[in-house]
């Protein structure tokens, strides 16, 4: 049976960065990828805007991935078209059962890094009702059809949800000769990045309707029309505001969910707010020696941060464990903060440099972020505005604080 120090599950940007950093920290590393090619979802993201932080240049998804793969050490073992069917905890680590075109194989590893990415919410998860015709697909599926297979899944469509992929696909469908009649968003503010609202909708005169949702679909075979309604503050449809829009497709960009089926199967505890595992600053989950990074940890809006979290997980997984004792402190927040990642700090770990990501619950202007340890402010930063779609990142140095029993992160008016 093959034995590894670190097995990375998922060969997207998080998994690539995790493998590389685990390997450069001297761990015998195996990278497992389900598809026939590395790169994950970036393979189909042919638009640009990736890598501004990491590579200081504007790259397309495939270019970004190409750079990452080029940096990948040839000593890292890679297993493509391989599916992890089972993970079992053993005394010394984990046993994984892998399936691929060569057969079923068992391997052993001391540590696991989950870099399994995320999936899209479906039409039934956002309670789309009416008939069930062809032509209701998620934005990611539409992107695969257009960018990978070179096929058009629509001629005239509406998009529900203003998530980034939805905005990107609005532009993409327009460029391919399709017509996007509008993007409908149930919330009163957009879900995607401002730059995407400008570059993908405004530049192409595609209207964005906030506080609107799709309440019904029509068509026995192919989608023929959708019913749009205004929604109230609780996002409930307002009676009497319904109108019908004739179109052949409904493209959904209604949120992403971290893929944590493997994590769940071995008993890793999940954070109900992020739907990813609860982690400390080393990105280790509630289960010893299981790490998580990228969109499997929490849904990111920039791939640069996905790669960064992969590096953190890889580096820490490669490190010899000092001891198994934990000194966990849960990070408390006020109501203006939706979540922080990590949500726990383990003071028994060597890693004292903490990269903290957070999202606000609403759009707030002129805010100040204040971080307290045992009631004493250790960090503060001012923001002219914070928005839920745009994740914020701060770096903390906890090496000088001692005997911490409380960490609080507060966002408040300046």
């Amino acid at each position: 049976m093959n034995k590894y120090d670190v097995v990375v599950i998922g060969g997207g940007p998080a998994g690539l960065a995790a493998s590389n950093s685990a390997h450069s920290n001297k761990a015998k590393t195996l990278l497992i990828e389900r598809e026939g090619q590395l790169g994950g979802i970036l393979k189909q993201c042919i638009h640009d805007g990736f890598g501004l932080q990491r590579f200081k240049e504007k790259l397309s998804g495939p270019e970004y991935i190409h750079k990452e793969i080029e940096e990948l050490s040839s000593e890292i073992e890679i297993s493509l078209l391989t599916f992890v069917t089972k993970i079992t905890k053993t005394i010394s680590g984990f046993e994984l059962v892998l399936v691929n075109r060569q057969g079923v194989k068992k391997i052993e590893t001391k540590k696991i890094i989950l870099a399994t990415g995320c999936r899209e919410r479906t039409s039934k998860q956002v309670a789309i009702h009416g008939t069930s015709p062809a032509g209701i697909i998620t934005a990611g599926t539409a992107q695969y059809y257009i960018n990978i297979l070179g096929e058009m899944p629509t001629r005239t469509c509406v998009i529900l949800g203003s998530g980034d992929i939805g905005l990107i696909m609005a532009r993409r469908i327009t460029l391919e000769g399709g017509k996007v009649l509008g993007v409908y968003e149930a919330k009163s503010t957009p879900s995607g990045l401002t730059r995407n609202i400008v570059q993908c909708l405004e530049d192409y005169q595609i209207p964005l309707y906030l506080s609107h949702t799709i309440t019904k679909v029509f068509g026995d075979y192919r989608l023929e029309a959708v019913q749009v309604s205004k929604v109230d503050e609780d996002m409930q449809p307002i009676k009497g505001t319904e109108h019908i829009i004739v179109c052949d497709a409904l493209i959904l960009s209604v949120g992403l969910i971290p893929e944590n089926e493997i994590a769940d199967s071995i008993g890793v505890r999940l954070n109900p707010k992020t739907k990813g595992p609860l982690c400390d600053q080393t990105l280790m989950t509630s289960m010893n020696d299981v790490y998580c990074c990228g969109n499997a940890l929490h849904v990111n809006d920039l791939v640069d941060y996905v790669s960064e979290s992969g590096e953190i997980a890889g580096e820490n997984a490669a490190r010899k464990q000092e001891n198994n004792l934990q000194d966990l402190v849960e990070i408390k927040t006020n109501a203006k903060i939706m979540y922080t990642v990590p949500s726990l700090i383990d003071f028994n770990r060597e890693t004292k440099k903490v990269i903290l990501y957070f999202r606000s619950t609403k759009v707030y202007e002129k805010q100040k972020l204040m971080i307290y340890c045992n009631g004493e402010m250790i960090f503060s930063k001012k923001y002219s505005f914070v928005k839920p779609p745009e994740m914020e990142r701060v770096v903390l140095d906890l090496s000088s604080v001692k005997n911490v029993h409380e960490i609080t992160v507060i966002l408040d008016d300046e």
Partner: protein
Amino acid sequence: MQNRVIATLNKKIKQINSKVTLSLKDDCALLTGYSDDWDEIVHIGRLVAKTKKFYSVINDIKLNNFVEPTMRRPLIEDNAYDGMKVDVLVIGGGIVGAAILRELTKYNLKVALVEKEDDLALHASSRNDGCIHVGIDLSSKTNKLKYLRRSIPVYEKLAQDLDVEYDKMGQIVAFKSNWERLIYLLLKLRIKKNGIQETTFLNRKKLFEREPNLNKVAKFGVLFGTGACICPYNMTIALAESAVINGAQVLLSTAVTSMEVKNKEIVSVQTNHGRIFPKVVVNAAGVFSDVIAEMAEDKFFSIHPRKGTNAILDKKAKDKLMFQSTTIYEGLRKTAKTHTKGGGVVPTVDGNILVGPTANETPYREDFTTSREEINQVFSKHKNNAPHLSQRDIITYFSGIRAATYEEDFVIQKGKWTRNIVHAAGIQSPGLTAAPAIADDVVAYACELLGKVSRNENFNPIRKGITRVNKLSYEERNKLILNHPDYGQIVCRCEEISKGEIIDALHRPIVVASVDAIKKRTRAGMGRCQGGFCQPLIVDIIAKETQNKLESINKKGDGKILLYQTKGEQHE
């Protein structure tokens, strides 16, 4: 005598609606007239049926300002089957039609089945909860109980022969107060009367051992050991494939549009693929069975469609919900009123949880829409059984239409007025359970009508399904992959379905090369991402395997196109 009954009933009916009249057609009750309210039409039909003074009820009361939508029909029109002669023509490719077709192949007959949709089991036979019922709720004189009792002992073996998974998980009826032990005594009488086997009393401890997440109000329960679950569309497909292996023909996308009847005998059946000449016609047309009966000039019953909505939950929800089909007894009246005893919070054979169904009368025979209200109805109805039930776990939902008669019973008989037809009509729950025995009787009637019929000595009862690779042991799976690497390439990540299984589904006795048909046969796309990742991959595999262009692969049928021709290709 019957004149007096009619006079009294007419008096009652006129009080409800003066435009409705009851008369006799032979010994059948015939209702005619107009109404503004569909519920009223159903109510009057039931009122007449309840008297049990007539052979059956034909309800021809028209709903004002209602134009019944025409039956959904295939888009193709040609003469592919024009002039075809068969001994028996089965109309309808649901569970009952498929079971009958297979049973027919046990004789030396030329048999065919026509189905208007592009695949089998597309409506009631897939839009149900997959329960093999125990028969506790059925009254002893019904056809429902008669056929259910005869089917239960043979079902497991049949499923085994057809390589269809049969999970005998049991069904539990739980009671929430100790005084209901009196009801339990009544129940015991019924268990005896209905011939129900394998029942066990469960005290509170044993009840919660078997069903730890049941509402804690439950005090005791009864376990019905014969209760089982099965995948209803897989069973239908398996029966039809077995029939094809034994020489039957399955003609999909073939709709019956009219019949030529002369001297109380069907001469020919018109379809969108031409005229077929059968000696005997079997009516297993589900929600359209009264329409088919009318074409055959043999309409002595009426179908009133009853819609039901079900939701399917993520496999992850199973641990906090039910381990077998368990319901808390809600009182006799409630069960009788809602016209659905089946369902509840039911584990499916594939490890999901099904919640449902609702029961709402509708004039639409093919209204498969869903609504927020129906889903809310489903969940509030069953919240009492399983406190952890949550709409957040939904991965999909769907509606189906039950083909209810006013007698609320199956119609299994030879034609009343037309000589060469056999009806298997009015099939609703427990039709899935009762199908094998229904098939038995229908085929016996058909053979009587045909006269001299000999047994098919070569009948092969065995049908092998598609190997579910992730259910094999590692050794078996490894061996299979070494010989066929496609079984090692996972396409559907949620359900762990391999490329090999998808290719297998395209090489079956009955091949339907659509995304939905592959999904039904392999479960690829049935998981929590609902095909988000694998749908394009499956389209690609089907296209390559059938040597078609990507854009010619549909979700289902002719009209459910997925992709449009790209501009470049149009110019070619």
